[in-house]
């Protein structure tokens, strides 16, 4: 998973709590300043669900809901933590190389 890809953004906003598709995109817009396109967003949701990194928030209610609410799984949290820690290391190294002290 690359640091700037749709899957990482979806995991990041879902780490805050369960959301449905449209709300996920609104949260991503608040975070990055722009929404993901429908293909990128729902492709990412399908891939993350296939890899069991996210799951429906309520399996029973899910079938009746028009908009499915998704939540991050424990495996998803572990994956996100590993990715963010790697990004933090890269970020720190880059800032050091530029002579900037991280805030």
């Amino acid at each position: 998973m690359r640091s700037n890809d749709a899957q990482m953004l979806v995991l990041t906003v879902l780490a805050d709590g369960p959301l449905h598709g449209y709300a996920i995109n609104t949260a991503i817009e608040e975070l990055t300043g722009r929404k993901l396109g429908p293909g990128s967003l729902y492709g990412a949701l399908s891939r993350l669900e296939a890899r069991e990194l996210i799951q429906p928030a309520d399996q029973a209610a899910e079938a009746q809901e028009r908009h499915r609410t998704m939540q991050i799984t424990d495996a998803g949290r572990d994956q996100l933590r590993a990715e963010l820690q790697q990004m933090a290391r890269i970020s720190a190294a880059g800032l050091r190389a530029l002579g900037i002290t991280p805030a």
Partner: protein
Amino acid sequence: MNAATFLTRLYPPAVCERWGEDIRHEVSASGIRSWPDTLAGAARLWLHPGDWPETFIGQTRRVLTVALFALAAVTGLLLRSAEPSTTLTADIHHPATSLWIAPLLLGIVLAAPLPRPSRAALRTLTASAVRTLTAPAAAVVALCLTAWSGTAEHLTGFADAAVVLFYWLTLGFVALRLCAFVAHVTRTAALPTTRRLSTALLHIGTGLALAAGQSLLAIVRTAPRPGSLVETLTLGLLAVTAISAGHDLRQKRA
């Protein structure tokens, strides 16, 4: 049908069932600027069947089986449009230029859903075949009668164009109904396993890649025609689709 609904229906059925309403809503809200990303998203998901959710067991295998036969049907129509050709043949008298068809046929055999060996299942299968294939069979008979009557040879202008159109519409109709029949069969027959399906896709992809290679070689050796360029590109695209989907399926659902 509006554009948002049309674009949503381009997604694999399982994705449509799970996220269709949300995708349609997002496309409607974002307008025309979201269309390229929506199209790219649909293409990416078709190339990665391992990412499809399943609303019932075997849904991915069922959809892929039908898609694989649709791919074979498109290939058949494409090659029919290129005939007569010395580059891509499909007969035992030209083994070197007909080699490409061997992996393709093997792939189709591997992906074929097997009807259950029971009287009830065979009755259902026969009924489905009669229901689905009667109309295309009648169209083919009509086409053959027109050809054998010899009237088509003397036609010119609009009448000639109408007969050619009838010919291609019949071929298209037959291909469509055969795919519909495969879709009916997959409801009751034993579906191929994921491993068999991925192997079938890889074989079909190999056959198509060989065909595209042969076609490309002919273009390099002779003066390229727009028709042969389109044929080569389409064969190459179909090959990439089949190989990519087969590879993804093998990796993720093995």
